Each structure stands twice: as structure tokens, then as C-alpha cells.
């Protein structure tokens, strides 16, 4: 089979922060009633920990994002996603649930930068409360970036991940590059 090609195709650029294609990433959307005992038993069987609202849960090579009360997204190796979706589907076969591989539907950006530079750059485009008290490491925020929906989270003060739909990957890359240009530092978040 051909190698997967993301919309960003490996691009990266450095200004106030470094904005880089995180490369092909496995993503599985799971929709289910997480208050249901049947669902939760099934998920325990496959070792999936459902994070609390707005939180991220890390597992064995996977990261699970809380997306909404009845939806999580599991991030994994690109090549594992189909199997991951399959095994979730099997585990929840007796419940009402939807598990589906959506690895190709989105772009994944890795953002790195010193001090509060990542928050400064995101704050130019998103109305979200980006104070570390409101968006600490380990929390995910779904919001908008300029005119498109995105989600982002910090894995450390200097390292963040952002996802958006594939078709607007180029727009988001250009946006982030523009507001991260030299000379545009705000210095608000440190």
C-alpha cells in the first residue's frame, strides 16, 4: 500500500514557536453512553480509560481525549487505528455504540515554544481562556481558531498538540505561521 500522506505533508516552520506536522496519527472516534454499565464493562475489557470532562487520559501508547459527554477520541499509531476501532466495536457489540477510524479526517500539529509563547500564539486566534489555571497541562479545549474548529492541549508548558479538520490544515498552518512571525511577540503569558 502507498504511504499515508497528511495534508501538511511533513511541513514545519519556526517563528515565535515551532509549528510542525505531527505526521500520520491514528484517531478513533468512540460514541457511547459512558454512564452505562454494559459500555463501561466492555471498555474495561479493552483497557480503555474514559477521561473526566475536558480531560485527557493516557494509556498504553494511546491518549484518550474527552470530546463531549458521549464521545471520546483515542489517539494511537496510525497503523493501529483500524484494529483499535474494530476491537472497541467488538467489545461494545452488545451495547449501543459507534467506534470508527477517523485517522485521515484531521491534521495533527505539534507546537513547541519557550515560556508562554505557545499560549501567546494561540490567544491571537482563539477566544478560549488560555490561562494556565483554566487550561492546565492534561486538559483539552475544543474551541475555534480564527474561523475553524480545533482542539488543543498541552503535554507540558513548552509542548502542545492541536488538531483540526484535514481540509483546513493548510489554512491553520498558514494562520499559525502568520501570527508566530518574528516581531509579533506579545509576552503576555510569560
Amino acid at each position, binding site marked *: *500500500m*502507498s504511504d*499515508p*500522506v*497528511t*495534508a501538511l505533508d511533513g511541513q514545519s516552520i519556526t517563528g515565535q514557536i515551532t509549528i510542525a506536522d505531527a505526521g*500520520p496519527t491514528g484517531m478513533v*472516534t468512540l*460514541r*457511547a453512553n459512558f454512564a452505562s454499565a454494559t459500555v463501561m464493562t466492555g471498555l474495561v475489557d479493552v483497557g480503555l480509560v474514559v477521561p473526566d470532562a475536558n480531560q485527557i487520559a493516557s494509556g498504553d501508547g494511546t491518549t484518550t481525549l474527552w470530546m463531549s459527554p*458521549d464521545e471520546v477520541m483515542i489517539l494511537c499509531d496510525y497503523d493501529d487505528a*483500524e484494529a483499535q476501532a474494530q476491537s472497541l466495536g467488538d467489545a461494545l457489540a452488545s451495547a*449501543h*455504540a*459507534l467506534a*470508527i*477510524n*477517523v*485517522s*485521515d*479526517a*484531521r491534521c495533527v500539529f505539534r507546537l513547541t515554544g519557550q515560556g508562554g509563547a505557545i499560549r501567546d500564539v494561540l*490567544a*491571537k*486566534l*482563539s*477566544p*478560549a*481562556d*488560555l*490561562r494556565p489555571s*483554566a487550561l492546565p497541562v492534561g486538559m483539552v479545549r475544543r474551541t475555534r481558531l*480564527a*474561523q*475553524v474548529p480545533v482542539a488543543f492541549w498541552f503535554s507540558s508548558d513548552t509542548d502542545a498538540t492541536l488538531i483540526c*479538520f*484535514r*481540509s*483546513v*490544515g*493548510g*489554512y491553520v498552518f*498558514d*494562520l499559525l505561521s*502568520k*501570527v508566530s*512571525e*518574528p*516581531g*509579533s*511577540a*506579545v509576552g*503576555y503569558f510569560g
Partner: protein
Amino acid sequence: MSHRLSSGGRLINRANPVSFAFNGRTMRGFEGDTLASALLGEDQMLMGRSFKYHRPRGVVASGAEEPNALVGLGRDHSYEPNARATTTELFEGLEAETQNHWPSLEFDIGAINARLSRFLPAGFYYKMFLWPRSFWKHVYEPFIRESAGLGKPPKRRDKDHYEHFNVTTDVLVVGGGIAGLTAAMAAGEAGSQVLLVEQTAHWGGRAPVDGPQIDDMAPNAWVTQVVSALQAMPNVEMRNRCMGAGVYDHGYALLSERISDHAPDKAGPRQRLWKVRAAQIITATGAIERPLSFAGNDLPGVMLASAVRDYIVNFGVAPGKRTVVVTNNDDAYRTALTLKAAGLEVPAILDAREDATGALDEDARAAGIRVITGRGIASVIGKGRVEVVHVCAQDSDGADYEAIEADCVAMSGGWSPVVHLWSHAGGKLTWDEADAHFRPDPDRAPKGASGEVFVRTAGTASGALTTEDALVDANRTGQAAAMALGHKARGPAPRAEPESRQVTAPIWLMPENAPYEKRAKSWLDFQNDVKVSDVELAAQEGYESVEHTKRYTTLGMATDQGKLSNINGLAVLAKSLGVAIPDVGTTTFRPPYTPVPLGAISGEAQGALFQPIRKTPIHDWHEANGAHFEPVGQWRRPYAFPKSGESVEDAVAREVTTTRQSVGLLDASTLGKLIVKGPDAGRFLDMLYTNMMSTLKVGKCRYGLMCSENGFLIDDGVVARIDEHTWLCHTTSGGADSIHGAMEEWLQTEWWDWKVYVANVTEQFAQIGVVGPKAREVLDAVSASFDLSKDGLPFMGWVEGSLGGIPARVFRISFSGELSYEIAVPANHGRAFWDMMLEAGNPHGITPYGTEALHIMRAEKGFIMIGDETDGTVIPQDLGLNWAISKKKDDYLGKRAQMRSHMTDPLRWKLVGLETLDGSVLPDGAYAVDEGDTVNGQRNTQGRVTSSYHSPTLGRGIAMGLVERGPDRMGEVVNFPALDGSPQEARIVSPVFYDPDGEKQNV
């Protein structure tokens, strides 16, 4: 004459001269100057012409309230009109041009308007141009367009860029004077997170000019100390050159930060618009001095007393050598003392009050200045600038006067708190009799989402006019804001010495009984040329509401927004109406406080980032292969792929012909793809679609229609049943997000007990159509894990597996009438699959085709297109789609609406094909005329064209249209006149022009 003093000027650096151009003349100033101070230093008192009468105008103020000194800055790709010279920081190479004059600032033909001023009174726009009607277009409008307006809009694209910045914080403090600093300190010390902003480049506001001792320190020293203390606090962020532009609902505020206006060679954005969400907002916006109304008060050289003081202390510039001070309050005495200390002459202080007994008055007398009480100005005389001041008794008609030679008048009509931001968010005002101004009423403060107060005022913005009171007020306000956030706040306010202060006399006209000819030369609004007599005329003509008077006279319009003109205008109106000022009320203050450039408002959204461009996984190939794109929603789709030297029309014809005769390739990735799963999914889709989806067999596809509750057709597409509980719904390219949204809406808000989950997988897949008689041969050339033969994958079936080594779902569906496969592959493999199909199709001359070929082929087959055949008023029954409407279902979205009498009217316009008699192409959207006229005298119509193309297959024009009782009128000829009225006759025919029996797709 105005001139640079030999010493002084706390903000300028005399070691660093700066040259700039004013109307093409090279001038010099110093680093730290504003454009206005530098011009005054060069004796350039004349800085503009007024709006209506083109009168010569000089600078009046020293800050954001300046009405006259508006200039055009820069040129070509960085031109900004209407910039205030008083807030423009000087830099090397600055270019400024004055506005609103022709041919030159010194000699302006438009000034003839001034001689006609008695013919241009209040409301002249409304009165003069009413008749004769024919004059409007050829006489009045050209005249108004030529003479109205101040600056001219830039003609070139702005070379600068701008950005936004979003902040959520506890407390926003607007204003970096001593009150803002004190309030920020009080809130910050209590533990609140604070953002403190100041519109100028300097902290401390007026205090360093006015000179009160604070905590036993000179104001400069105190400001420096507090600023460094605040800068050291981790919970306090400070920005200067950052103006509070507006305060809105729920604690939202806009700030306009000027980053490189003063340093144009700096990299990065020119300005930044801050969007702040603050739990508490403190407006420490200070106060603005009011002018006094006397004849000739608009002559260059008549200035606000505080501005005269500012130019001397801040910039070492004196507006004149002999300055008469005229006042109704104590504060202007500071100006007289400052002038005296700078070695300038002050022939007299004219105090309109009967006696002057404050501490400042004594200082003035002690300094040897002649103080005359009970006096005002009868008129100021001079040609283009102040030459003589006629002094008279305030309580007189000004007939008897004493002439005093002077080249400058420093006037003070008292101080009005800057209430703009407070008022933006709904804060109400109260009239303060003692200080003769409106101030914020703390009992009627703006309230936020919680129903609690979220805007507070601090310092002179509250109406606390002494330093001591302002500091106490600011400290209390800062603490109150912190406490509203649950923080504990304590600590005393900074101390200032108490001042003895006399009340401000409410003087609204000088002298009290000035006759008409003086009132007609007493300006209330310098910028918009509104005089005392204009407001009086408005009152006389019955304008009682202040809002109506504002519009009738243009008082306080444009960039002034009531800063200088408001209170004086209200007072004159009140007097004319014989009511008290608070009974007249004030006009509404609207954001922004001072203009914010449109570039800053658009932020990053300009040029290539104006709006998102959505791209399919194959977009780069399209670009590299000369695609002519068209927007489809935010997508860019190839319209056609012209080859080198080929016209777009020829390319479209070639694409249709090749596809019909051999094989074509379509990027259909933009099609919406929604997975609908659950035990109730079939029932749910039966509600959404007009036809039955629950009965669709696994492995099969069905075309479906979706309507709104209003009955109108909103979307269509092919639905595939994936398994027992799962359906895949294709939507139109533009409809994916809205249909996904609609599904979620119904599931969440109406049928929330139904077990259905929806996932939008539109972007997970690249979808590629292989279309044409040779399509199967193309697919057969690559390895497939499934059978693609006629029986293995019949029409309206789908299979899943791998194709050419890529996971694929193949749908055998057709929007062209040809043998056709639509293949969905993971988006990250979409380009590889496209390339593979191009290669496999090469022996057959495969051609990629665009949306126009797609449209033509569907029209040749009579297939409708959402957005062409539908426009939000069309029901499926209008389109002959009754076959796709289930009769068995009790309910579906739109069913009840389609039962309404208008929807079942037999006279509705219905879909037919249209064939011109001469084979030409009907214009899209043309109407068919009918006999007779409507009640409005317009020609009756009986139909319209919804789609029209030249068919390369048939070699003539084909069209679809909606015609009254169309299907019952086959063969009839109707007339679709062209725009010039010439007849275009077309015959009503079946909309299926090509392969009516569907044999080609079923092979």
C-alpha cells in the same frame, strides 16, 4: 506666535531631532514630540479646515479629544486618514497632509461656504436639497460629495498587517493615570489578576503636568515608583499605547494597541486588537476639559487651557507669547501660572465667576497676574489667528468691551468625566450641579451575566476632581473590584494634599446675553461646524429630543462622539427649551472611543487568510495541472482542466465528450459523508428523508431527499446501508456540516430517547468518481478484492475491500447517466489512488473533469441540483420527485408543511425541460412572461430557467426550468425575453435529454 521654548519639555529628547514633512514641507521636531507639538514648535498653528465652512482651524486640545488637527498620514500603501495630530507620535520621515481643503490649506475655495453660512444652518441637508427633485442627482449630490467628508479613504492596499489577542482576566483597568495606577495596585495587591492599559505612551496621565504632591513625592517620582512596583507584580500586566475602545456585554472589552505606528520600520503587526473578557472593568479614563462658547472661539490660537499647559510642560512648546486665560473654574489658573513660570506673558485671567477666592487664585495674584472676575470674552478678533481679545462683563451683551492684544486664548469651561466606556455597557449618568457635569451614577452601573456590577469608575472619571479625592476613589474602586471577585482587599489610598476648590460656574454662553451675531460665531462643535445658533434654531423648529437635535445639527457626530461638544450643546438646548440640563439628557455614547482602523478589526483575516479555503486530498494535483477553480462553499473545486492553449469552454466540452465516449475522473471528495448508527437509526432516517431508508438492504444504495419542516427541499444524496444498524448518508458538498448539525439537533433536542449516533466522516475519505463506458476496464486494470462485474456489483450496489492495495468502498452510482463508480479511500491515500486511476485509465484517454462537466452531464440526464433547481421555496413535488416521497410513512420532516394549500396548488411552477427553437442557450434565471400585468404594473410571469447549458453531447442548448403547470404543457412554446426585451422562445419538453431509458448506466 507658537514656538519652541529654549528649555523644558519633559517628554522630548532635545538631543535627538527628528525631521518630518507637513504638506510637503520639511520640518523639525524632537523625539518624544507629537505631530501637534512639533507643528506648534514650527509656528504651524493652522492644521486643518472645518467640515462645513472650511474655516481655518488650529489645534485645540492635546489628546484624543482633538476635533480639528486631523491629518492624512503616510502615502500609497500605508496611508491613514483622519489621524489626530495630537496623538500621533513623531518619527523620522513622518509624512502628514492636511485635509478638507482645495487647492491648499492656506487658500481654500471651499471657505466660500463660510460666507454662505447663513444659508447653511442646522438641518441644511434636509432643507436645501428637497426640491426640485431633478437637482438631486446633477447638482446637490455632486456638490455634497465634493465638499463633505474629512479625510479621503486610502486608494491602495494596506501594506501593514494586524492581529487580535484574546485575554480572559479578573480585572481590566482602562487608563494609566494616577487613578488607574492606584486602582490597579489596589486590585493587584488583593490578589486579582489585573490588566492595566493606557492609550498614550506614558504613565501618570495629567498628574506630572498638574503637579500635585502624592505621598510627599513629586508626581513624576510617585508615578515611576508605582509603575515599577506594578511591573514587579506577577499578577499585573501593563500595556501602554493601548486604548480602551469599547466595553460590551458580560465583561467584554476591546482594546486597540498601536505597536509600530510610531516606529514604522519595526517588524511584526502594526496594531493589535485585544479582545478582553474581564470579570471586572475599571474605567480610570480621566476627564476632558470643556471649551467655552464665545464669538470667535474657533480661531486658531484659542485652545483648551489644559492643552496650553501640556504643550509647555510636556513638549517645551508655547502656543503663544501673550495668552489670555478665560475660565469658569479654578483649574485654568494652573495654566496661567505655568505660562508665567515659562517666562510668557499673561495679560489677564478672565474669571466668569463674580469672585475668585481659591488657593490657585491667590497664587496667580501673587505671581503678578491680573485677575478680572465677572468677565468673559465678547469676541476674539483676528485674521486666521488670534490678534485681539474683547473682554466684557459676563452679565452683559458684550457691547462694551476692553481690547487686549494677545496671540493665544486658553479657555476652560470646566471638566467633564470621560463616561464613554461606562455608557457603552449601559451605565447611567447623573447631573452634578456643583461641577456642572454628568458623571457616572454608581447606583445605575452596568451589570453582567450574574446580575452584579461589572463596570466601576476610578478617579476623575468618577467625577472626583481633586487629586486627593481621585486617589481615595480609585483605591476604593480597585478594592471593590477585587472584593467582587472574592479577594480580600485593604490598605489606605495614596495621600495627596487637600485642595481648597471653588465650585465651577455653569457658564454656557459668553457673555450671558450675547446677541445673535455673536451666537452665530460661537462654536459648540468645531469638527462639525455646529454653533450655538444652530442648536437654538433646532429647538425653535421643534427638536426637543437630544438625539434628534444631534442628527439634525450634526452636533457631536463623526470622530468627536461628544467628547468636546456634548455638554455645551446640551446646555444650550436645555436653555432654549427652558428645561434643566438633566431633563434634556445626553446622547448615546457608542464605541469605539476613538476610531479603530478597519485593518485592526479584520485582524489576521486578510489576503490569503481572509477566509478558510478547504482543500481536498487531491487539491495539489489540480493546482499543478492547471485547474480552473470555482468556490463551492469554502471548498475550491476544479471547474475544468483547460490544457495549454485551450479555452475553458472547450475544456468543458472535451471533458464531457471524453467521459461520455470513454472515461472521466472526478474528485468528489467534497461530498458529505455521515455515518448514522444505532437501533433507531432506520426510524431516524425515515424521519429525515422523504422516502424509506429503514427498508434499504445491506449492500444497497438509495437516492434520498431531505426537507426542512417548512417542506422545502434542502439536500439530496445517496444513502448506503453498511450493516444492520449502520447507514452512510451522502450529502451535497455544501450541506455536510449543516445536515450533520441538523441530525444532531433533532437527536439532542427532539428525539433524545432514540438510540442513534452520528459521525461526520466527510474528511476521512477521498471520493473519486470513475465515470464512462470504459470505467470498468479502468478498475479492472488494478487488483481488486471484490467482483466489479455487472452482476457482481449491480447498479445501486456497493462493496468494500481493497482496490489497488488501498482500502476502498466502491459505490456503483451515477450522476452522469454513464457506467459509474464512486470509490472512497482513506484521505491520506487519496492522492495515490487518483494517480493510480490516471495511470490505469491512460490507455483509454481518461480525462479528469470538473464541476461544469459534472453539471452538464447531470442536466443532460434531467437530474436536479440543490441550489439550482431549489432555492428554499421549492418542494420535491415541484420537481417531479414524487417517486422519492413515501406514501406509507405517517410522518417525515416537511410532510405536514407539504399538505398546506399553497403547496398543493395545481398552479405551482413545476420542473420541465426547455429547448430553444433555434438551439441557442437560454440565460440562466430568465423568466417566462405571461399575459397581462400584476397589480404593480409589472408583466405577469409563468416560469423561470433554473439550469441552462450548452450540451456538447447534443450540440445545442438545453435547460431546465420551473413553469406553471409545466408537465401538463409538453410541446407548448413559451417566451423567455432577454434583458433587452427581445423574445427567446423555448419549447416545453421532458427534462431528460439524454438516454431517457437509462441504458448507459446499466451495463
